[in-house]
């Protein structure tokens, strides 16, 4: 102990050393097992690693060109659309709920918010499975022999997406609504604004950060979603996540899969960067 302390006394003179020393283990670990793998993905996508998993000197954009093939583009855009639709629906359902809990049900809000937070802690897979329990019953029989199911349909996928991601929209919204001082809303009312007008001109703008945070939290993971279209969707609901899954698990085409994954990642990062520039702030846990 005292040896270490003498060392520290010496180091006190050179203050830059301490943070570097502290960071050393985590940084080494992350560099090795996070950042290098991320770049490995790059290398595969550009064909710089061959089928024997050795580093080659060759560079090709072939895989990326293949990624922009018509079918793949279709799947990309469908994924973006579904993710966007999910975010929008979650907003329209989630905002009233967050608003009500924050402002209209004050006595119960701790209990209700715990109920909102619990899904964060439950595995996605489990929640989808629970949903399937229910959705499998929704078969509508039209005439004899003609059946429309929710399972395996667009409606099924959208139901799953919204149901799964709703808590992720509610929590950030709640957090920012809760921060609005009630006296501001009351002031607005005394100045002549009706409840509706107060909502649009005061409450909504003030809660914009929460809206942005919630949208990101829903949209970004939705783009790469695999489990929901897998269990609840049919062929026409095939998304980027399913594509990557099949390429990796079935076809073992790591190169094309990598290229596609990188493209998705880039789009996601761009969106997040735009958000950080115009929305700003950290995500609170």
């Amino acid at each position, binding site marked *: 102990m005292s040896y270490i302390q003498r060392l520290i006394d010496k180091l006190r003179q050179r203050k*830059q050393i301490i943070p570097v020393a502290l960071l050393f283990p985590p940084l080494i670990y992350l560099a090795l097992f996070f950042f290098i793998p991320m770049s490995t993905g790059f290398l595969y996508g550009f064909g710089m690693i061959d089928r024997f998993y050795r580093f080659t000197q060759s560079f090709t954009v072939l895989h990326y060109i293949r990624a922009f093939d018509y079918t793949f583009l279709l799947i990309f855009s469908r994924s973006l659309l579904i993710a966007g639709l999910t975010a929008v629906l979650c907003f329209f359902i989630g905002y009233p709920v967050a608003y009500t809990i924050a402002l209209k049900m004050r006595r119960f809000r701790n209990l209700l918010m715990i109920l909102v937070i619990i899904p964060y802690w439950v*595995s996605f897979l489990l929640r989808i499975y629970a949903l*399937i329990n229910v959705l499998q019953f929704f078969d509508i029989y039209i005439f004899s022999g003609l059946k429309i199911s929710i399972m395996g349909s667009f409606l099924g996928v959208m139901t799953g997406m919204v149901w799964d991601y709703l808590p992720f929209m509610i929590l950030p919204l709640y957090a920012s609504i809760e921060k609005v001082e009630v006296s501001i809303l009351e002031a607005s009312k005394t100045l002549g604004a009706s409840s509706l007008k107060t909502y649009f001109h005061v409450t909504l703008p003030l809660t914009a950060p929460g809206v942005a945070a919630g949208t990101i939290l829903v949209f970004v*993971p939705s783009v790469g979603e695999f489990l929901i279209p897998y269990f609840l969707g049919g062929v026409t609901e095939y998304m980027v996540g399913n594509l990557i899954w099949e390429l990796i698990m079935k076809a073992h085409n790591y190169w094309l899969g990598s290229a596609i994954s990188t493209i998705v990642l880039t789009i996601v990062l761009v969106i997040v960067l735009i958000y950080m520039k115009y929305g700003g702030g950290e995500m609170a846990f």
Partner: protein
Amino acid sequence: MKLGDLILKIFTLLVFALMYGPIVMMLAFSFNDSNVIGAWRGFTLHWYYELFSSVDIWNAFRNSVLVALVTAMASIVLGTLTALAMVRYSFKGKNVLDGLLYVPIIIPEITEALTLLLFYLWIGWGLQMGFATVAIGHIAFSVAFVFVIVRARMAGFDRSVEEAAKTLGANEIQTFFRITLPILLPGIVAAGLLAFTLSFDDFYKSVFTTGPAFDLLPLKIFSMASRGGVRPELNALATIALMISMGFALLYQWISKK
């Protein structure tokens, strides 16, 4: 009560009912004395017995717990070190590092899982995939989460307590272990809970980086659901996993208050 308020409240309660309905149903039918979900035949613990006597499932469960424990412990250490360095000191490249540390949090899970697999293949670990490869990936991901949580806790930390300890004769090491760490402990434990849960529930990274001999609970659930659809024994398994998760969530809330 105004009409608008009433509508809002009813709407909210409806949403909550829908949110938890499927879960309640899954829970209920795990006790159903029937092979088929839908018609209630009677109460039974039969499916839970089947679970407890299944070697496969115990195996997967045990593996998941092991990986989660290792992940939690390692990411607590690494994440706390990072938080200490980032909060207390300033140095070149700090902002860049801060941004980089958010990447694991926002990145799509499937992308991250993929890169881990590709990395392992590249360095020649392709045939030895199992506990180590899974745990390593989980830790890499959790460190960022632990960092964010511990850092948030440290924001409210009053440094003068450390200065007081120093004026009373405690050197840096004594101050850290007797004063700083005990005060930060609830935050660190809470972060550890989160890391454990993320690892225990993890699907994508696990499925991509595990080997044939090393099964994990989420993977087992996935394969059972893919093959047979909705089944009561799967309901039982899912219910148990759910209860564990809910317990952790409540534990986290309780610890966060301290």
